[in-house]
């Protein structure tokens, strides 16, 4: 085990006292088991295949204590940063604590519940017991186990069968310098009942320059014929660590559509595991890493086709500038029974500077023969032909570069159905592009 793992083990008993749900025996047991598993293995290293390209040493160099102090007050200047999603139902967490002032989820339609994890453990512990830490586990569970052991807050959303929620639900996590040197172990649960429909937007925003650690696990269940659109914006502070894991279980004829944009933090990992536990499923995972200055942004996905006749389509891109580094690992598994699977994946990486680095590892693990599977990956700079074409029409080189870079990204946004979310992401992207050195942004 790594040395740092042992530091967490030493301090675990002391942290336990501050955790919610101590009165629930099943939860205490779950936490203890999870922590024991973590204690046995410690932090993953680069020898762990799933972490081959992400070195956790910067995160592991020190202990981040769970954020338990009640510092969850919305700073006066912050609301302007909240992506404006119009009529969205919003639940807000500041520095890992629920913040009722900014939250606007009182007018939810019948059949929809949106609670904090703390509330849910009090009001509906059985619901949590049924859905927490299901069997849809990632290959390397260290951070899931740590999260289960130490989770303090998060959002719980349930949509009853047949309910179609029109306005998006916004889970907003804000971290300020008040949370410096601490860890937010957040746990979100989203349950979309049979035939229901909803759009969820998760956003993580850091306003300061301090080091902190967001360790978030989002567990999702999309029941038969339900449709869930799930979008995420990761815009943590520049020194932040963001380790996120989304575990989604999808049932017969359901749709799960995920889009994640990562552009913040100094070291960030967005891991998605989609278990296609049914037939006729339409699963779409898309996303983009926007990395400039010095961050390390990692997107890791696993799509596990457990049953026959489902479809997945995956497109991830990275734009890498300055000294940044990005990682894409995309595994598609087709189990022996999952005949008639169609699975297609594309990963494209755009390098903008001489010091930038992109690593990609698409992976097909196919155990059924009647399938159509493919993946493609590219790493390159901007297309020279396209650059010349734009210049030959009178655009300056800088304008042409920035237009092509923007196009590389915006192409991805066009598929997002909800206009307010699409615009919020477009806005975040435009800000990012404007800060890009060397491409001017004068299109």
């Amino acid at each position, binding site marked *: 085990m790594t040395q740092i793992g042992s530091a967490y083990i030493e301090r675990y008993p002391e942290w336990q006292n501050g955790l919610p749900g101590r009165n629930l025996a099943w939860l205490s047991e779950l936490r203890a088991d999870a922590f024991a598993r973590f204690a046995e293995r410690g932090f993953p290293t680069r020898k762990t295949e799933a972490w081959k390209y992400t070195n956790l040493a910067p995160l592991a160099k020190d202990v981040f204590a769970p954020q338990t102090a009640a510092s969850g007050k919305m700073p006066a200047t912050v609301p302007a940063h909240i992506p404006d999603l119009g009529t969205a139902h919003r639940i807000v967490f500041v520095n890992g604590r629920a913040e009722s002032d900014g939250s606007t989820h009182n007018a939810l339609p019948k059949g929809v519940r949106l609670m904090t994890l703390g509330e849910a453990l009090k009001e509906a512990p059985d619901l949590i017991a049924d859905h927490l830490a299901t069997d849809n586990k990632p290959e390397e569970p260290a951070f899931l186990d740590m999260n289960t052991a130490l989770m303090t807050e998060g959002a719980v959303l349930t949509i009853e069968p047949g309910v179609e929620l029109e306005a998006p639900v916004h889970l907003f996590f804000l971290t300020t310098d008040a949370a410096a040197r601490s860890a937010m172990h957040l746990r979100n649960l989203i349950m979309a009942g049979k035939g229901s429909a909803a759009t969820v937007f998760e956003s993580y925003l850091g306003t300061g320059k301090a080091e902190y650690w967001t360790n978030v696990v989002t567990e999702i269940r999309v029941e038969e014929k339900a449709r869930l659109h799930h979008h995420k914006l990761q815009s943590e502070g520049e020194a932040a660590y963001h380790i996120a894991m989304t575990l989604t279980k999808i049932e017969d004829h359901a749709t799960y559509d995920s889009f994640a944009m990562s552009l913040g933090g100094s070291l960030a990992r967005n891991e998605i595991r989609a278990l296609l536990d049914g037939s006729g499923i339409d699963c779409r995972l898309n996303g983009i890493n926007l990395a400039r200055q010095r961050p390390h942004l990692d997107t890791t996905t696993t799509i596990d086709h457990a049953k026959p006749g489902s479809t997945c389509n995956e497109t991830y891109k990275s734009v890498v500038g300055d000294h940044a580094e990005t990682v894409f690992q995309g595994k598609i598994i087709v189990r022996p029974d999952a005949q008639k699977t169609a699975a297609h994946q594309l990963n494209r990486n755009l390098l903008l500077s001489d010091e930038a680095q992109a690593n990609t590892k698409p992976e097909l693990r196919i155990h059924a023969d009647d399938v159509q599977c493919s993946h493609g990956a590219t790493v390159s700079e901007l297309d020279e032909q396209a650059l*010349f*074409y734009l*210049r*030959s029409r*009178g655009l300056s080189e800088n304008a042409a570069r920035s237009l*092509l870079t923007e*196009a590389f990204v915006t*192409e991805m946004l066009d598929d997002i159905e909800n206009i307010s979310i699409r615009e919020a992401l477009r806005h975040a992207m435009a800000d990012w592009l404007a800060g890009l050195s060397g491409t001017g942004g004068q299109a």
Partner: protein
Amino acid sequence: MPNLLEIQNLHVTVEDKEILRGLTLTVPAGEAHAVMGPNGSGKSTLAHVLAGRPGYEVTKGDIRFRGKNLLEMAPEVRAREGVFLGLQYPVEIPGVSNMYFLKAALNALRTHRGEQELDAVEFLKIAREKATLLEIDENLLQRGVNVGFSGGEKKRNEIFQMALLDPTLAVLDETDSGLDIDALKVVANGINALRSPERAILMITHYQRLLEYIVPDKVHVLSDGQIVETGGKELALELEKTGYATFEKKRAPDVAASAPAQSA
């Protein structure tokens, strides 16, 4: 008529291979010229060099455009000065809408000329007008540049861009290739509508088919990197009959002796 374009003894190397070997050509304002030649003679190289494509190294010679040294200008400056290249294979640019792109291009040109930039409404008005001329569906304007366009649509889009950008010299590289007869007529009509005493058009083509619809003032035969014959429009017909072989013999003996196989 003053010469709009003057090319003197142009030598161009691509990836260490000499493709143009002393090409000399002049095009006066108000005229349409055709450059014809077999595959590998250097036609496309000529087109790209005029537009300033990176990777084409001019080792000798001179190109003057309205008396200015064209070779000193970046590709975008050439475009703003009034040189337009219609590409044989227009590039697809997903994520950039045709409209956005053309508005940016036209405004870059207008700024260069000291004219006011157009706002979206003004631009749209002009764009619609030109689109009608080329029978371009307005939906294509909203789509990504050339993305999902058929071969014919791409070529029409090139001429549409030309109409919009209003160049002084239009270099059209194999504009007829891949067009069926109906599309060819539309494209030819579009080009003919743009002929004017101030403008010159240089058509680069393998076949004389295009020249039935856009009658050139002069035809030049390009072989092995040099112009080996210049004549009137009847020259194109002669080429059609006899092929290029007759003309290949006419090239300068020193060039013929040292000519390796090449591609343009």
